[in-house]
């Protein structure tokens, strides 16, 4: 599971560098992102702009991260490609996640 981690002030941006977030990658994804999930940052931005495919396992993995967020902390989803956005919608995940077009918009909306 290739991810890139960046600090944006007190917050962390995790970019998924895989094109597919499927059943074969779901566990590794949860492990990788889980490591920085509750590292003290008030907001964790998850940048999915490289991901072109997601299935129920990938969506379930992201949902499990959301459920593991400590109180007062936020998981913010950024950069959904068209096929991934369609899957968020089909599975109603768009109702429980805060979603921004890209990291820049998310950060500026959240910090101003």
């Amino acid at each position, binding site marked *: 599971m290739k991810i890139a981690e960046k600090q944006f002030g007190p917050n962390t941006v995790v970019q998924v560098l895989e094109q597919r977030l499927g059943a074969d990658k779901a566990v590794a994804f949860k492990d990788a992102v889980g490591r920085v999930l509750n590292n003290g940052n008030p907001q964790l931005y998850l940048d999915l702009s490289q991901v072109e495919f997601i*299935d129920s396992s990938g969506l379930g993995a992201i949902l499990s991260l959301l*459920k593991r967020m400590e109180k007062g902390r936020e998981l913010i989803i950024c950069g959904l490609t068209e096929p991934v956005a369609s899957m968020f919608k089909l599975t*109603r995940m768009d109702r429980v996640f805060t979603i921004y077009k890209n990291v820049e918009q998310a950060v500026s909306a959240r910090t101003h």
Partner: protein
Amino acid sequence: MRKITFKIESRLDATPLLGQMVNALCSAAGLSPTDAGFVEVSVVEAANNAIEHAYLGDPNNFVEVSVSLAPDALIFDVFDSGKSADPDFVHSNHQGALSLSEETLAHASERGRGLAIIQQVMDSIEYTPGSGRNRFRLIKRLRAT
């Protein structure tokens, strides 16, 4: 009627290639990119289910997906030779698995959305258990453009 069969080992990391081929075939058959993506996910869900639930993760088996291109539909037959599922359960309405909201989030399961996605995307499905060969048929109709 044109037909091709894809065969992969029963490993989760073999399904991405299957998915990409299904997507390319859907595009060639005239589906929109969005629909091709949805069908790709559905066939991958069915293959993942065969690997996880029929073969219980044993990688020494095969999943076969036969695709028939009818004039008005794409027919995907996903075959496994593992443990059969209960057809009534497969055919039952799984849309409840997609009823996510802020209120229900705490109790929402991380799993169990595969069949619901398949039912949403496909126009009809039919699971036929067989001794040594289970078939999960997924049909996507082609709309006149």
